[in-house]
């Protein structure tokens, strides 16, 4: 946010808002007392909200400001507004919050009040029969930690009241959600609210709803004081109190036949959504499907649930849960291959494309599309030779030895990225674009999809279809007053939904432009293809409108004395439609790999307690180029016209490949991430 531009424009009239937060992780708020405030300053609390005190995502809600129940440390319960930052921080220090603390709950693994409607179940096959076919059972718990988004900029919003109307500027992936939230909180008509969106240039599935909360706060302050209000979190505040990638814990039981085939699986999953589950339905389903994974299994019983704890909301991250799920299934699969003493690559291949008579559910059949990527990545990385060599060394070594030695390991993993929302949720969303051509033949595109990266692609698509120059194509500035609602720009919907709608508009204009007088305006809305059917309980159909596929190999070296981890090589092979700007795509995949590795071995975020300053001190990102160059390549998947979202593939495939590699190098099994040298030491010490 260009804070300085606002300061220049409004000078002393610009008010700043500071969020007053709950000091306890769980409890009851008795009172907030601001003492005497400088003139013109104001403390806004839940009681001041003119509309509804809630933020809604699909059918779930959270309060905008806590009224009496405090659900996490840092939960917003007031907004202090004033025009001098120093005075404001002094006044904020003086605020007295009287809260009655209660015993908080931080871990999701212990059963607790699950949100009923989010319980999820997959069940198919003849469980009893398949269990009898097995000769061994692999049982374990695997979990994944939270992760900080670390957006380029901390959350911020600017709001300006203009009589009966309000204008809000913010970063968001879902402008119309900001709009409805602001309208609901202020108790006004959505027509009175206009949102201007800034593009942050990176993929940020996390900002899908959290910007709406900050925007609602700024809007509330501007509405009640009549002043232009800027609300900007600092990095520490953003880190401590905004949503993180939701941690997941899974209990798995896999039954294996004498030949090493999976005959049956029982999986129980809990996802810790922090204090308020939002978006939980999509998230849980993605986690569960990820945990089912790509390895065919004739009988399955899966249960999944969302659990609430007294931590800040734990929520959407790149891919909304697929990576957590795939981590679980891939690491578990690696272990199953090991237990049945089989080459992990062969084992994987046989489970992705089982050589059997009976009918395989479509979910697994679709996954066969990953095979070319798998074969290619195995080739490129020289996986089979390395794996065999490291395995031999491992067998010779009893444990990590007493001499200085490097042990190596290599891991393999496959994954997918489901583009777009799973089946029925897409139906609930608006998805409209508008394209118009003026008398001079200039094209104007209106969509609320924010994607600087795709604009040049859409420009070219328009120019090609309509035989005009790309300079004649313009985008309407992304404000809700001027563009239609295209829904949230997450889960690669920009590619799957927006691109398709724009193409339809361009085609329609092409047909009509010489038959009708200009200007022409076309509006198109997305409808789910009729063949798209998915029933999770019976496991029939296919959940995603479209998928991309990827396979990774990670090779590591572990110092047997210091347990320092070095990555020796990373290979990522992708099969995901056409590649438009290769260099840019590679660059963004490298960003993803860095974050994925950060999650795997570098970023430390404890989840068993309320957030505090110590967490902030310990949390650091992996710097660019901390690992060796990455080999990335793309495979033609035969479909020359579709472009697909692939940016999540590093998150889904790199962490399990990494964990499996470290397991081979050290002979230690991991039940969670991050695998730091500290963690290796603990495991070795206790083994």
């Amino acid at each position: 946010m260009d804070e300085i531009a606002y300061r220049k424009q409004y000078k002393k009239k610009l008010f700043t808002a500071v969020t007053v937060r709950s000091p306890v992780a769980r409890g009851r708020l008795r009172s907030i007392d601001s003492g005497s405030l400088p003139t013109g300053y104001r403390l806004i609390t839940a009681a001041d909200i003119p509309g509804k005190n809630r933020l809604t995502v699909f059918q779930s809600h959270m309060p905008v400001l806590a009224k009496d129940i405090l659900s996490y440390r840092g939960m917003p319960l007031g907004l202090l507004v004033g025009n001098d930052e120093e005075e404001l921080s002094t006044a904020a220090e003086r605020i007295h919050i009287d809260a009655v603390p209660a015993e908080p709950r931080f871990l999701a693994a212990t059963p607790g009040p699950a949100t009923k409607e989010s319980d999820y179940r997959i069940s198919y096959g003849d469980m009893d029969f398949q269990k009898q076919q097995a000769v061994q059972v692999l049982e374990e718990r695997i979990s994944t930690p939270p992760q900080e988004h670390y957006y380029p900029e901390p959350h911020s919003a600017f709001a300006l009241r203009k009589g009966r109307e309000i204008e809000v500027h913010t970063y968001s992936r879902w402008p119309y959600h900001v709009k409805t939230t602001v309208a609901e909180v202020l108790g006004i008509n959505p027509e009175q609210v206009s949102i201007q969106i800034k593009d942050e240039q990176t993929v940020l599935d996390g900002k899908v709803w959290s910007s709406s909360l900050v925007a609602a706060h700024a809007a509330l302050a501007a509405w009640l004081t009549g002043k232009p209000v800027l609300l900007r979190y600092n990095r520490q505040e953003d880190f401590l109190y905004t949503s993180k990638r939701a941690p997941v814990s899974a209990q798995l039981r896999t039954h294996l036949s004498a030949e090493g085939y999976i005959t049956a699986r029982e999986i129980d999953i809990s996802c810790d959504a922090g204090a308020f589950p939002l978006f939980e339905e999509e998230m849980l389903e993605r986690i569960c499907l990820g945990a089912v994974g790509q390895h065919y299994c004739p009988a399955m019983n899966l249960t999944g649930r969302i659990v609430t704890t007294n931590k800040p909301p734990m929520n959407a991250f790149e891919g909304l849960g697929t990576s957590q799920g795939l981590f679980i299934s891939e690491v578990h699969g690696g272990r199953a291959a090991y237990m049945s003493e089989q080459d992990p690559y062969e084992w994987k291949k046989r489970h992705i494309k089982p050589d059997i008579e009976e009918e395989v559910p479509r979910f697994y059949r679709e996954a066969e599309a990953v095979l070319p990527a798998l074969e290619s990545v195995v080739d490129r990385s020289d996986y089979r030779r390395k794996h065999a060599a490291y395995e031999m060394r491992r067998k010779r070594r009893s444990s990590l030895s007493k001499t200085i030695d490097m042990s190596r390991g290599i891991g393999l993993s496959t994954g997918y990225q489901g583009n777009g929302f799973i089946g029925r949720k897409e139906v609930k969303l608006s998805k409209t674009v508008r394209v118009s051509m003026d008398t001079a033949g200039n094209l104007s595109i209106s969509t609320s999809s924010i994607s600087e990266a795709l604009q040049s692609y859409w420009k070219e698509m328009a120019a090609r279809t309509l035989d005009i120059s790309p300079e004649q194509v313009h985008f309407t500035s992304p404000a809700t007053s001027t563009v239609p609602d295209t829904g949230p720009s997450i889960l690669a919907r920009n590619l799957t939904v927006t691109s398709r709608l724009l193409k339809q508009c361009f085609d329609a204009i092409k047909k009509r432009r010489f038959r009708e007088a200009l200007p022409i305006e076309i509006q198109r809305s997305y409808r789910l293809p009729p063949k798209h059917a998915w029933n999770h309980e019976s496991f029939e159909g296919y959940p995603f409108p479209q998928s991309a596929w990827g396979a990774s190999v990670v090779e590591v070296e572990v110092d047997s004395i210091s347990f320092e981890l070095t990555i020796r090589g990373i290979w990522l092979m992708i099969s995901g439609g056409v590649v438009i700007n290769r260099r840019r795509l590679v660059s963004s995949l490298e960003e993803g790999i860095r974050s994925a590795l950060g999650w795997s071995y570098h970023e430390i975020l404890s989840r068993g307690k309320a957030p505090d300053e110590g967490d902030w001190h310990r949390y650091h990102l992996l710097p660019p180029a901390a690992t060796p160059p990455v080999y990335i390549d793309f495979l033609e998947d035969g479909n020359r016209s579709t472009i697909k979202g692939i940016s999540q593939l590093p998150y889904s495939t790199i962490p399990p490949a990494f964990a499996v590699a470290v397991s081979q190098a050290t002979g230690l099994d991991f039940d969670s991430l991050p695998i730091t040298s500290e963690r290796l030491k603990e495991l070795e010490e206790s083994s």
Partner: protein
Amino acid sequence: MAAEQRMVSFFSPADLTELIQLYSRHPSAVLFAGGTWLLGREQKKIPVLGEQVINIGGIDELTRIHRTERFLEIGAAAPLSLLLEQAKRVLPVCLYRCLTSIGTPAIRNLAGLGGNLSNPEYRMDSFPVLFALEAQVELIGPEGSRRLPIPRLIDSENNLRLKPGELIQRILIPVESFTEELYWKHEHNFWMPETHLSVTAVARMEKGTISEARLVFSAFRRLVMRHRELEAELVGRVPPLSQRETEYLYQELDSFFQAAGPIPRELDRRMLILKALDFLSNLGSEATIPVPGRY
């Protein structure tokens, strides 16, 4: 409230004489050198440093780097980057490696050795290295100057032994050459001192035998340990060390760390010991004699 009324007296003396006068008048003042520790751990918008602060960063006498026949003399407030650039050819290899591991290039444009050595809470990275190099600190105060060997800078309670009004002016590193040097540091990140371990080792060889060896270990940015008797026992040995010698050294160091530290975790002790043994075993094995200026 405290926050409003807080008034800070900030002094910026022009030279060393003025600094000493000021500091003896305000011995409880906070010395501000590069400020990277003082401001980095204090993450408030307006930092709370103390009622009186004396800025020593710009004082010429404290930023000079000079080499005499006997010593490399480093001003306490000379930025580490300046030191790394100006003295690259003469810095001992272990010190060079240590300094390049401190913070980031941008931090090193501010941070100095004085601030690194006189941290009130932690034994920062250069401490064990300067100890191994048998460097001295030159202190200056109202009663004039005096020199202290590095370990004497702290007392048995791990507190700095500076008298009121006294500060570090320079760090003096003897000009010596070693056949082999090691600096090895291990930590998850700087803000997690509980994960920190380091080993500094220097040795001289004469005709295939060890004529001198020094080993300094640090743990958790709290403990700095040197086993002088063991060092003396190493003299005259011929690497590579035999199995029996290695086992003996292992036991000796292990009990030393259990007593001296203590370092409770076996793996931490093992890490320190094996890094040191590896250094000793490889002494003279290859022609990897470090040449100053090439790292």
